[in-house]
């Protein structure tokens, strides 16, 4: 009786992962969609992508492609990749990352060709599309960096919207009063910190649920700026709400490079600060003492505490720093995009920044590219409404949100939040 039922331990445990058919299925569905719409439904004409204008210092020829050719080639390639994914999954192996990357790029090319080709004027300035995307992405990138700083240290930041809005407001007022856009920039950072301060005090000191504080802060900032806008700013907008704009700083020669010149070397100080911020946050997060501690505090605060790291001070400082970043991002609205503050002018960009943060998997570089993608979607919908396309404008505007839903639902890779994000730390 005692050993009769012993199973043979010799039977080796197969380490094959539980097979997930999620990715192959999604790839197949998307590939089929591409076949139906981009290939079979391709417009018969050629599509022109302009890379420069005639009077640019360096003139590049335009790219002219045939919509059906691109549609069919891309769709078939995507089907092949989907098939590859199915085979890999069936044999219990992982799908290589390059498959997903190439698939995404193909989809983007096919979509762009199809959508521009279907427009009344199948001719688009690619360089303008890209440069515009970057411009629109600037506040998103600052916002999502603010999110990275907070969430990596374990504080959920729903208040990005409020930080941006208050930054925009403060920048407008300070720049108007002082007559200097740079004073406005500084004020924006201070305003962002103020919002952060409330977030930090309530969520860290008083252990109020971080999502509640974030949501309520957004309402508070919206109400406060809206009230001041009608009580003060619109009473005498000459004095309070006519900020000078930040100048565009062109870097000689480099700014003349087609396509990438305007993106990288023809920006306001806010644009350059954005690139610097992404690089600095990335390097600091993964390669500095501060970054190691920040990540530890966000993943396993108790462990950090037992090693003498002051968890709540670390979090407090990070949240304040996030305020600086998001505040500067807010100044984009009033010092770069338009000259002057308008009620609720951030219009939910803070929430898209939050989405970019998640889509970018809590990584500064990832958030940067996610924000670029969202900026691209917004810009594309602007451009396409001018060109006249079959895709309703609203669907393009929905894109960032839909993509984010897919991202958090794990349909586009796996997003893993910092382990202790959202959990207050209370010392025993």
């Amino acid at each position, binding site marked *: 009786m*005692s050993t009769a039922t012993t*199973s043979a331990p010799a*039977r080796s445990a197969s380490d094959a992962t539980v097979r997930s058919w999620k990715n192959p299925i999604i790839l197949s569905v998307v590939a089929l969609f591409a076949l139906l719409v981009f290939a079979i439904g391709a417009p018969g004409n050629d599509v022109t992508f302009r890379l420069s204008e005639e009077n640019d210092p360096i003139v590049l020829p335009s790219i002219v492609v045939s919509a059906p050719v691109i549609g069919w080639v891309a769709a078939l390639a995507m089907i092949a990749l989907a098939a590859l994914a199915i085979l890999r999954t069936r044999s219990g192996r992982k799908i290589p990352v390059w498959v997903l990357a190439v698939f995404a790029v193909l989809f983007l090319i096919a979509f762009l060709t199809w959508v521009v080709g279907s427009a009344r004027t199948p001719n688009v300035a690619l360089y303008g599309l890209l440069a515009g995307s970057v411009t629109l992405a600037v506040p998103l990138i600052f916002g999502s960096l603010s999110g990275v700083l907070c969430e990596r240290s374990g504080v959920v930041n729903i208040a990005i919207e409020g930080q941006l809005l208050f930054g925009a407001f403060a920048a407008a007022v300070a720049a108007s009063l002082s007559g200097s856009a740079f004073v406005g920039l500084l004020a924006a950072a201070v305003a962002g910190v103020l919002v952060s301060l409330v977030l930090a005090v309530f969520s860290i000191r008083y252990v109020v649920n971080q999502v509640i504080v974030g949501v309520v802060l957004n309402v508070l900032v919206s109400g406060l700026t809206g009230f001041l806008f009608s009580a003060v700013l619109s009473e005498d907008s000459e004095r309070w709400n006519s900020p000078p704009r930040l100048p565009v700083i062109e870097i000689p020669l480099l700014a003349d490079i087609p396509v990438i010149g305007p993106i990288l070397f023809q920006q306001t100080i806010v644009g350059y600060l954005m690139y610097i911020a992404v690089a600095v946050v990335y390097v600091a997060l993964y390669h*500095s003492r*501060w970054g*190691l501690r920040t990540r530890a505090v966000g993943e396993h605060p108790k462990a950090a505490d037992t*090693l003498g790291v002051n968890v709540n001070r670390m979090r407090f400082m990070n949240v304040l720093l996030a305020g600086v970043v998001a505040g500067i991002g807010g100044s984009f609205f009033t010092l770069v995009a338009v000259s002057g503050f308008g009620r609720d002018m951030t219009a939910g960009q803070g929430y898209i920044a939050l989405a970019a943060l998640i889509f970018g998997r809590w990584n500064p570089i990832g958030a940067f590219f996610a924000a670029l993608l969202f900026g691209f979607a917004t810009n594309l919908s602007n451009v396409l409404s001018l060109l006249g396309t079959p895709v309703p404008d609203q669907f393009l505007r929905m894109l960032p949100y839909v993509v984010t839903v897919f991202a958090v639902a794990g349909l586009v890779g796996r997003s893993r939040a910092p382990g202790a994000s959202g959990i207050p730390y209370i010392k025993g």
Partner: protein
Amino acid sequence: MKLELIGITKRFGSLVANDHIDLVVEPGQVHSLLGENGAGKSTLMNVLYGLYDPTEGEILVNDKPVTFKGPGDAMAAGIGMVHQHFMLVPVFTVAENVALGNEATKAGGMLDLQETRTRIRRISDQYGFDVDPDAVVEDLPVGVQQRVEIIKALVRDAEVLILDEPTAVLTPKETDELLGIMAQLKADGKSIVFISHKLREVKAVSDVITVVRRGKVVGTADPSAPTTELASLMVGRSVSLTLDKKPATPGEVTFRVQDLTVQAANGQHVVDGLSFEVAEGEILAIAGVQGNGQTELTEAIMGLQDHVTGSITLNGNQLLGRSVKEVIRAGVGFVPEDRSVEGLVGTFSVAENLILNRYDDAPFAKGLSMSQSAMEQNAQEKIAEYDVRTQSAQSAAGTLSGGNQQKVVMAREFSRPLKLFIASQPTRGVDVGSIEFLHRRIVAERDGGTPVIIVSTELDEVLELADRIAVLYRGHLMGIVPGTVSRDVLGLMMAGMPADEALAQAHDVQGGDL
């Protein structure tokens, strides 16, 4: 380094966790702190490590009083701690974990992990740890993670090492290795505070034993003191190490598990090809070191696991593939291993918790509508029957002590006719008085003719309750042995030796322990 605690008192509200505790740790000494679960050992060590402020009392290092505002101060004073639940960031590499809080940096605050790696390799070589600085911690086995914890302390030049229940998660073999490491550390002149409630280990390594009970030091003992004496000192009265229970009278076999395999999300077979059966009126104990598939086994039976293959039948009915509710309705009673997480809803009242899995059955519900009076009446009966110490049936279950919470869970499960009773760690974190009560109830259920499965990592509990013992190792069944088998045999099986080999080997060395 000499470490002294004088009159340390720590209160949480009205609860006194430590009551004027005195303790002296001499250099190069292994000082064991022996006490039951909940005796206040960990609290004391957290005070010593600067995680808690003492309410009263003084800490002396080399005869000079010190105050620790946080773990940083304690570490600076040469105190290192290996926590029972490892304080490692799972997504960090070993080097990052070791560096944290004590980072070697280059210019501008940039990390110099190379320096840390070198230090890790040096310590690893010195003590034969075999730890790769670049491995990600969550991928490492438990035993290696523990070594990372020790490295963390050593890198910070700890002179006194506190090991808090270090063997709870180790196999007997890993435990032996740890005891070896402790001897090495001692030889290097380090002092060690060894916290445990396992008498054999304490006796094996200690120079001095301090026994703590209910927050107080109740005595010091010599390692050569008899086990029973230590045990009675620890629990406060003479303990009969065995429960008075009649021999089992097994009836018909009604519960069968065949070729059961549970796959974890990462594809690993956490339970692999398990087959066993339980008869009416007998207790099958499932022994093993924590994390060898016991949790997954019980959860698979309850329908709480996905990716399960094989067969589980109760009275001939297949349970596999049924929902949890159907399994409960089939007459399976279940006491989960972590009552505060899985057994109770802390913010719910005692009355609500007593019907937590029967809320939609008569008499508690008619259709969608629930009956408050039936719930209240049931609560009054169960509170009286199980002597649950609570202010009222309306008190939140989270306010009860561990033992009383467990009584609520047991009362709930025993309040319906059972065809099978499963209890995981039924007495973990429960006071001695309640343990006896709960054990008697379990035996009574067996005597009533119910097949019973007890999962426990505590050998004492296993030996006390079991009629037969099944040992799990890495998801495999090492065999099923009679409840009267010796500890040595169980120890060998828990380390991965099949039952027949273990029996043969234990027979050869005859009486190695106790």
